[in-house]
């Protein structure tokens, strides 16, 4: 099970990196979304994958009866999902605003902050 998941996660990472290397912001955004999911699946795999028993401790016991999935990574993923979702929402609005304002979504042409033809610094006065 873990091996298949590792393969899936690696595919996610490949796709994400490929999209992140694009110069069009909309593709980079898709890459960010996929990257977030890749990480979540990675943490999920790190916490054991099993369908055997739910990680619930019986009333008269101190420890789990059998092998069970670790519940903590799921709590971590929950946090990470909330965070990455909010960031994705922010970046989506930012990208739209930037497209609106700068009239391009090509990062090669976004040179407002770093103009192409900046004069060289003075050599003497």
């Amino acid at each position: 099970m873990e091996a298949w998941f590792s393969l899936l996660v690696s595919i996610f990472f490949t796709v994400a990196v490929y999209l992140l290397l694009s110069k069009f912001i909309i593709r980079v955004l898709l890459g960010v979304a996929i990257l977030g999911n890749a990480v979540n699946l990675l943490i999920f795999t790190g916490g054991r994958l099993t369908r055997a028993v739910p990680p619930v401790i019986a009333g008269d016991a101190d420890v789990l009866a059998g092998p069970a999935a670790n519940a903590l990574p799921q709590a971590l993923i929950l946090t990470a999902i909330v965070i990455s979702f909010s960031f994705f929402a922010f970046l989506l609005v930012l990208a739209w605003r930037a497209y609106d304002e700068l009239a391009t979504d090509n990062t090669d042409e976004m040179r407002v902050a770093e103009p192409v033809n900046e004069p060289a610094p003075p050599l003497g006065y």
Partner: protein
Amino acid sequence: MAASISPPADLSAALVLTPSMASEWLVILPVAWCLAVGALLVMLRRSLGLQPVTAIAGLAGLVMIDGLLLERVATNGPMTMVMGRWLPPFGIAFTVDLTGALFALVAASVALAAGVFSLTDINDSGRRYGFYPLLMVLMAGVSGAFLTGDIFNLYVWFEVLLISSFGLLVLGSEREQLDGTVKYGFLNLVATTLFLVATGYLYAVFGTLNMADIARKAESLRDSAPLMTLVGLYVLAFGMKAAAFPVNFWLPASYHTPRVVVSALFAGLLTKVGIYALIRVTVMLFPVEREEMSFVVALAGALTMIVGVLGALAQTDFRRILGYLIVSGIGSILAGVAVGGPGGVGGAIFYALHSMLVMTGLYFASGIAMRLGASASIITLAGLYRRHVGFAALTLMLCFAVSGLPPFSGFWPKVMLVKAALDIGAWWLAAALLLTGFLTTIVTGRLFLFAYWRDEADQSGEAVPVSAVSLAPLAALTLLALLIGLYPDPLLGAIQRAAAGLAEPSAYLNSVFPAGGSQ
């Protein structure tokens, strides 16, 4: 997965029902305080006059809390606070040692200076956009990152400070800012995601997220687990956050676009959080792996220094020059991390603290210069010395400090780093440090020569008064830089103890796991 082979833990030891002592709350108070003041500021969003007053009072309170915390930690050693009495490694622990307390205090002081400076820099529309609440939440994130003892918690605080920094960066939504924020936003999000990837692997290997627990277990797992991969991922993620070569180009693309006070805050805080996390993970948690990676980190540090300062030489915009100087300073800190030992790590911590104060001060100076000269380019800026002698003197002192010239704060960390590099025979690293110092002197010298010393073409420019409110934080930071330079003993002593505490974290472990702890 290592977690499956570990024996069932004795949970009864983890749950203690005695409440936390009141003094322990001091550890978490900086974060809670910032969040509370931030919430208050959100409630006060309509009364624009009250906002700056509340925020400055809140930041002054934060400085006092952090000062008290530093004093406690310096006398009693590391302190730990556990939420809900779930003891580590199960519960989330806030652990503060001397390194964290020092960073937190300097960060709070820088933020207080920025709060005062913002009185003249943030207009009503900036207040309406929520500058002050975002500032407090940023400080909550920064303090949380410095004080937490749990690596996933560190990730959460990174995200808290990241989202508020996005808000501060686009404050005003000008075209330039949107452009800068796009680059800053995407690259920083990728960096924190890398951090999360590393943390996911870390949990899979160690089965714990508590830093003290990781430091204990690292020794036994060294042969069986791919720790080098883990540390490599962490170094890449934190290096990206700290703007180390070759992943540094988001910083000069974005730091000159927002309001001056926002640039100044970022210059003081954000890259230093990355550096702090790098020091914490490599020096304290994985010292053996740090040793093995030291050549790569040293090379990255030397290249960061040189690329940063050469970038600064090629710029004409006042704030972009400073942006590249931040990058070059990060290189010096990385060199210290790479060299290791008390001299290297101590020098890195010292340099980081010095850089927080001085770079923030220089950004304040750039703001005042832009107001005085109505321009940001050193081609057109001129005659600032004639317009305000005192301001020019303060800037010159900061220029000396950032170049590492005595008697200012930049001198001592540079001496420590060069000596530490020579001690291990890394002459090329020492040479890079000295060359960077020399080139930085040229950069700041040229900046001063053109913008301040040169006479204006037309002498008609009348004197623009500089308000005391914007000069005061600049003067305070300059004075601190001068004081540290003239009388470095107390800070140096604290930093040496902090570096020793990172190298030999038994006091840190004892604070988290009193009397040996569970397992």
